[in-house]
C-alpha cells in the first residue's frame, strides 16, 4: 500500500517540521491519524481506493458464509455432488486418468464417458488451489476447498468488476460496481459457500473475458486480445453458457460496424480473439468441433468473414483514392461476398452439416418449444420464465438504476459503453426467459447501475464543493457569467441548490443502505439453505434439523453390497453415487432420455410390470423421497406427474390422463385406480396408513398434500422395505429375487 509513506518524503517544509515534532514518543498517537500523515491527494486517493477494494473483497467472501456457520461445511444441492466426486477423483488419480475417465457407476448398464462430457474448468481450478495449499504445507481436505471455491471467485469477480467499471466510465463507477456485485442476490444465489457448481467460476471467467476484450478493442493491442482469448478458453472450460460470449461479441462487432465505428483496433482485437479462442476452445473434449459445425457458433464465423471483407474494402479504398472506380469495385465485391456466404450457409444447413440450434438454447428464443417437445428441459424449475417478483427479489434498487445508467451510457457513447449496453440488454432479455439466467445478467446490471450511482453522486458532490460565486455588479453580468459556467458555480436564482444536493445525497445513501440490508436479508433467508439438510422451527422455537438424505445415503453405503444397483428418480443420482458410493440407473446428467423414461415407466406402472423392468435393469434397491410426514413438498409424489410425462413421451402405454381425475392430480380416496396402485404410490405410502401425523387428523394424513390417502392397506409382493429414515423422508426398498418355480 503506497499510502502509509514516511511523511518526510513529501518534501514540504511544513511537514518536515511537523515530522520533527512527531518523533517524540508522546506524539505517537497523533501520528497515527490520517491528517498528520500529510499525504498528497493522489496518494490519499490511492489509499482510499485500495482500502475500499480490500473491504469489498472481504465482504464478498463473508456474505456467502451463512450456511457454513449455520449448518456445517458441506456441499449443497445435487449437481455440486457430481463436481465434488470428479474433483476427488482428479486429486486422487491425476489429470490423465481424469481426462480419460469412463464411469461404470452411473447410468447402469450404459456407463458414462465422464472425461468427454464434462466442463473441467471448475474441477481443475479447485484441484490447483488444493495442490497449491498442500505445497505450502496447508493440509486441507479437498471438500473444504470445494466448499469455499465459490466465495473466493466471487471476491475475484468484484476485482474484475472494478477494472471493468474503470474502463467503461471511471474509477468511481468501478468501486461502486465492485461493491454492488459483492452482495447482489442474483449472483449470491449461485455462489454461496457450498454451492460448488460451474457458475461459481463461470461468472468470473465471463466478466474477465468481456473486460479483456473491451480493453483489446480500446487499445488495439494483440497481447490484450490474446489475454481475452485465454479468458474465453477458461470460460469454455467452465460452463456451457459460453455460447453467450461467442454470440454477444460478434453481435457487438456487428453493431459497431453498423454504427460506423469500424476501426483497425476492432479488426485486430476480434480476429485474434476469434481464431485463438476458437482453437483453444476446441481442446475441451465436450465442446469438440462445435465451433465449426454447430448453428449456435456460426454467427461468430460469419462476422469473422465480414470483418475480412470490411478490411479488404477499406484497404482498396485507401489505395485507389478514386471514388468512382471504388464504387464499382464495392458493388461487385459486396454482392459476390453476400452470394457466396448465403450459398455456403444454405448448403451447410440443408445438408445437415451445420447442426441446428440445440433444444436448450432454442428454447431461449422460443420459450414454448421445450414444453411441447422436450419435457425433461421443461421440468427443471430453473428453466421456467422469470416472474417480476424474482427480478425485484434479486436486484432491488438496481432495477430502476439500470435505466438511469443506460441514459448515462447513451450520453457518453464510446466503444466500451456500447458494449456494456448491449451486454445489459441481451442478458436482461434472456433473464426474462429463464430464471437461471438472472445470474448472467447480474454483472451487467451492477455495472450499469454503478454508472448511474457514480455519475449522480459525482454531480451532486461537485455542487456541494463549489464556492459561492461573488455577486457581480449588475444583474445582467451575473446572469451571463453564471450561464457560461453553470456546472461549477451556483446559479444565483436557485439559492437552495446546496441544500437540495445534500438532501439528494442523503436519499442516495438511504437507498444504498436499504439495498445492503435487503441483500443481507435475502442471502440469509433464501439462498443459504443446503437443500440436502432441512431445518424447521419446533414448538418452542428451537431449531430441528432433518438430516434424512445423508442418513439414507450412509445407510446405503454401509449396509448394501458394493455392487448393488440403486434405482431412483434422476434428481438423486449424483448424491447417491457421491455419498452412497453405489451404482445408479439414472442421474442428473440426463443425457439419455430413453433410460430416464424407462425408470419413469417403472415408477408409474403396477408392481408386476415394474418388477419386470427392474429385473431387466438388475436393480437391487429402489429409493424414493416422501414428504408426507414432515410436510416436505419437493418429494417424489409431487414430481410424479413429470415421471409420467417423461415416461409417456417414449412409451405410449403410459398415459397421463390415467393418473388424473377430471384433470386433477389426487392421492386421496377419489384418486384414479391406476394412481392408487402404481409402484411410486405403494412405495411412498407403504405402512403410512397406520401412522398418525398430525393431532386431530385421521391416520394416513399426508401433510404435504393436505389429504388423507386413499389406499391405506398396501401389500408389496416383489419388494420389501429395507430402510426408512427417522422422519420418513427417504425410503429404501430391496428388490426380492424371483421366487423359485416349483
Amino acid at each position, binding site marked *: 500500500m503506497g499510502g502509509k509513506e514516511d511523511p518526510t518524503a513529501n518534501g514540504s517544509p511544513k511537514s518536515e517540521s511537523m515530522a520533527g515534532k512527531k518523533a517524540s514518543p508522546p506524539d505517537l498517537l497523533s501520528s497515527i491519524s490520517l491528517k498528520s500523515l500529510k499525504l498528497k491527494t493522489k496518494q490519499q486517493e490511492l489509499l482510499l481506493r485500495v482500502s475500499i477494494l480490500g473491504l469489498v473483497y472481504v465482504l464478498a467472501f463473508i456474505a456467502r458464509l451463512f450456511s457454513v456457520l449455520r449448518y456445517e461445511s458441506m456441499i449443497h444441492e445435487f449437481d455440486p455432488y457430481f463436481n465434488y466426486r470428479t474433483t476427488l477423483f482428479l486429486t486422487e488419480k491425476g489429470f490423465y486418468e481424469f481426462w480419460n475417465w469412463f464411469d461404470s457407476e452411473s447410468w447402469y448398464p450404459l456407463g458414462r464417458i465422464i472425461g468427454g462430457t464434462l466442463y473441467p474448468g471448475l474441477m481443475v481450478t479447485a484441484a490447483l488451489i488444493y495442490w497449491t495449499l498442500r505445497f505450502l504445507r496447508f493440509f486441507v481436505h479437498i471438500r473444504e476447498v470445494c466448499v469455499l471455491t465459490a466465495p473466493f471467485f466471487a471476491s475475484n469477480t468484484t476485482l474484475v468488476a472494478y477494472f471493468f467499471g474503470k474502463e467503461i466510465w471511471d474509477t468511481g463507477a468501478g468501486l461502486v460496481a465492485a461493491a454492488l456485485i459483492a452482495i447482489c442476490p442474483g449472483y449470491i444465489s449461485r455462489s454461496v459457500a457450498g454451492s460448488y457448481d460451474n457458475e461459481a467460476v463461470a461468472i468470473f471467467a465471463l466478466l474477465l473475458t468481456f473486460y479483456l476484450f473491451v480493453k483489446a478493442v480500446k487499445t*488495439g*493491442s494483440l497481447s490484450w486480445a490474446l489475454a481475452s482469448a485465454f479468458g474465453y478458453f477458461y470460460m469454455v472450460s467452465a460452463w456451457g453458457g459460453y455460447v453467450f460470449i461467442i454470440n454477444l461479441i460478434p453481435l457487438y462487432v456487428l453493431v459497431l460496424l453498423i454504427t460506423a465505428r469500424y476501426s*483497425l483496433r476492432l479488426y485486430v482485437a476480434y*480476429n485474434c480473439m476469434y481464431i*485463438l479462442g476458437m482453437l483453444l476452445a476446441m*481442446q475441451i473434449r465436450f465442446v469438440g468441433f462445435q465451433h465449426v459445425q454447430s448453428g449456435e457458433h456460426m454467427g461468430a464465423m460469419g462476422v469473422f468473414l465480414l470483418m475480412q471483407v470490411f478490411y479488404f474494402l477499406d484497404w482498396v479504398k485507401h489505395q*485507389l483514392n*478514386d471514388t468512382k*472506380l471504388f464504387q464499382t469495385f464495392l458493388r461487385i465485391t459486396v454482392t459476390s461476398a453476400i452470394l457466396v456466404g448465403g450459398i455456403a450457409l444454405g448448403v451447410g444447413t440443408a445438408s445437415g452439416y451445420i447442426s441446428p440450434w440445440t433444444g436448450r438454447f432454442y428454447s431461449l428464443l422460443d420459450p414454448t418449444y421445450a414444453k411441447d417437445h422436450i419435457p425433461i428441459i421443461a421440468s427443471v424449475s430453473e428453466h421456467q420464465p422469470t416472474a417480476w417478483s424474482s427480478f425485484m427479489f434479486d436486484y432491488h434498487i438496481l432495477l430502476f438504476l439500470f435505466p438511469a445508467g443506460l441514459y448515462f451510457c447513451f450520453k457518453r457513447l464510446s466503444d466500451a459503453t456500447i458494449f456494456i449496453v448491449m451486454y445489459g440488454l441481451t442478458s436482461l432479455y434472456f433473464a426474462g426467459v429463464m430464471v437461471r439466467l438472472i445470474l448472467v445478467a447480474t454483472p451487467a446490471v451492477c455495472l450499469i447501475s454503478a454508472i448511474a450511482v457514480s455519475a449522480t453522486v459525482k454531480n451532486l458532490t461537485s455542487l456541494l464543493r463549489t464556492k459561492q460565486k461573488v455577486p457581480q455588479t449588475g444583474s445582467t453580468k451575473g446572469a451571463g457569467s453564471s450561464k457560461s459556467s453553470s456546472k461549477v458555480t451556483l446559479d444565483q436564482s436557485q439559492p437552495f441548490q446546496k441544500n437540495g444536493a445534500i438532501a439528494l445525497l442523503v436519499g442516495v445513501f438511504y437507498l444504498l443502505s436499504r439495498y445492503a440490508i435487503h441483500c443481507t436479508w435475502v442471502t440469509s433467508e433464501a439462498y443459504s439453505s443446503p437443500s440436502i439438510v432441512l431445518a424447521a422451527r419446533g414448538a418452542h422455537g428451537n431449531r430441528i434439523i432433518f438430516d434424512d438424505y445423508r442418513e439414507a445415503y450412509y445407510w446405503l453405503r454401509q449396509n448394501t453390497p458394493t455392487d448393488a444397483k440403486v434405482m431412483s428418480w434422476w434428481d438423486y443420482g449424483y448424491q447417491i453415487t457421491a455419498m452412497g458410493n453405489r451404482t445408479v440407473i439414472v442421474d442428473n446428467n440426463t443425457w439419455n432420455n430413453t433410460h430416464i423414461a424407462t425408470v419413469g415407466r417403472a415408477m408409474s406402472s403396477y408392481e408386476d410390470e415394474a418388477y419386470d423392468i427392474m429385473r431387466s435393469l438388475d436393480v437391487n434397491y429402489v429409493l424414493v423421497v416422501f414428504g408426507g410426514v414432515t410436510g416436505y413438498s419437493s418429494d417424489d409424489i409431487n414430481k410424479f406427474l413429470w415421471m409420467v410425462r417423461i415416461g409417456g413421451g417414449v412409451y405410449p402405454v403410459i398415459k397421463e390422463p390415467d393418473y388424473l381425475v377430471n384433470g386433477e392430480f389426487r392421492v386421496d380416496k377419489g384418486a384414479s385406480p391406476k394412481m392408487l396402485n402404481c409402484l411410486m404410490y405403494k412405495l411412498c405410502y407403504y405402512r403410512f396408513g397406520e401412522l398418525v401425523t398430525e393431532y386431530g387428523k385421521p391416520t394416513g394424513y399426508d401433510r404435504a398434500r393436505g389429504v388423507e390417502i386413499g389406499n391405506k392397506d398396501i401389500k408389496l409382493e416383489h419388494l420389501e422395505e429395507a430402510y426408512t429414515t427417522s422422519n420418513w423422508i427417504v425410503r429404501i426398498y430391496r428388490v426380492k429375487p424371483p421366487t423359485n418355480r416349483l
Partner: protein
Amino acid sequence: MVKSTSKDAQDLFRSLHSAYSATPTNLKVIDLYVVFAVFTALIQVAYMALVGSFPFNSFLSGVLSCIGTAVLAVCLRIQVNKENKEFKDLAPERAFADFVLCNLVLHLVIINFLG
C-alpha cells in the same frame, strides 16, 4: 455495358497496381507471407476434398494454423504501417513481439490439437 465494365476492370487493376508498388518493402514482405499462408490453406482444403476429412481434428488444425498465422500477420501489418494514425505510438518492435507471442500460442495449441 460489357465494354464499360471491362474498361472499368482494367482501370481498376492498373490503378491498384500503381498504388500497390508504392507501398514500403517491409509491408510487401508481410503481404507475401499472408498470400503464402492462405495458399497453403487452400491446398489443404483441396487435399481434404480429394481424400476425405478424417481425422477432422488434424484437418482443422492444419487449416486453422494457416488462417491463424495469416490473420496475425495482417494484424502485424496494420500495427506496423506508418499510415495508420491509431497505432503511431506503438513501437514496431512491440508489435512484432506481440506477433511472435500470439504465433507461439497458436502453434502450441495446434500441436496439441493435431493428434
